[in-house]
């Protein structure tokens, strides 16, 4: 989601701190993993926003690049990284974390229909990568 391991570690650390501070707001009966993921995703969005402000780059509208090498995995990571934040979050939770769409909707506080649409559009953008890539996808 953040693209760099150091940033991911910082995000996890910050998320635990926020969890510690706000654990009183957790409603028992709700799914704890959903609560934790929601905190985690909000931290990621905050960090991305800060990074965008620092670098003055529009990460959300970046074009997918094919020049970074033939490794399809790396290309996919770059392509995911280039997706708009919300779309990226939906796709990562769905395709990488293998979560259900209604759970994603709960984590990101979106409607299920919105999540479905975001995932569809993310796949459409990433499909471009697969169709244009010189490397073959071997599952």
């Amino acid at each position, binding site marked *: 989601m953040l693209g760099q391991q150091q940033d*991911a570690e910082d995000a996890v650390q910050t998320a635990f701190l926020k969890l510690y501070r706000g654990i009183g707001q957790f409603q028992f009966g709700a799914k704890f993993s959903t609560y934790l993921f929601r905190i985690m995703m909000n931290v990621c969005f905050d960090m991305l926003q800060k990074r965008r402000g620092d670098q003055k780059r529009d990460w959300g509208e970046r074009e997918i690049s094919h020049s970074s090498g033939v490794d399809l995995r790396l290309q996919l990571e770059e392509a995911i990284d280039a997706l708009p934040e919300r779309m990226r979050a939906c*796709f990562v939770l769905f*395709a990488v974390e*293998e979560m259900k769409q209604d759970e994603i909707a709960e984590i990101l506080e979106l409607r299920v229909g919105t999540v479905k649409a975001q995932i569809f559009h993310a796949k459409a953008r990433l499909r471009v990568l*697969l169709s244009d890539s010189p490397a073959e996808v071997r*599952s």
Partner: protein
Amino acid sequence: MSCDFYQKFESSEIPESEFQNHVRACSTCQKLVEQDAQLLALAKNLRQPARAPLLWAKIENTLRAERQRRRPAWLTNFQKQKWAWLRIAAVLLVAVGLGSYLLFKPKPEAAKLLEGAALKQVEKKEREYAEAIAELEAVALPQMTRLDTDLMLLYRDRLETIDAQIARCQEALAANPGNAHIRRYLLAALQDKKETLRELLNVAGPKALAG
């Protein structure tokens, strides 16, 4: 060639069975489904556990620092100056204990002194005893010669003992005239002497007592 069936299926606008029927006949949708399957398979492989051996230690440190930060100031101060507070508490405890003892301790004997009218009344009673004893002595002591020797010695010793007791009491009362205990002993001694003299007269002869 474009086809919006796949999008409709993805957004749950058409049921899966209808889409499956459509896919069999639509090469565009077939290609999209295949590409998405490949994409999802590739994306699933992106989930690899990253090695972060120091991450949990960092989280623990952060949480510990946060707990320290949220601790009330008075508790932190107390822990820093624990021994000083304990010394103050010990001094207060001793002070309260000592104060309570001084406040509630039993009254000393000196506090039970006879004062004013009570003292005068006791002294009057003692004088009455002394006068009665003097009268009895005047009559009884000459009669002692009429007793046999053993009985005379017995009464003489007994009277000397009582006199010594009276003398000790009077000596003590000279220094502390208000002491109720000594007054009580003195009255008892005087009463004892009076009774002994009466007894002596009875033994020596009823005539002497009547006279």
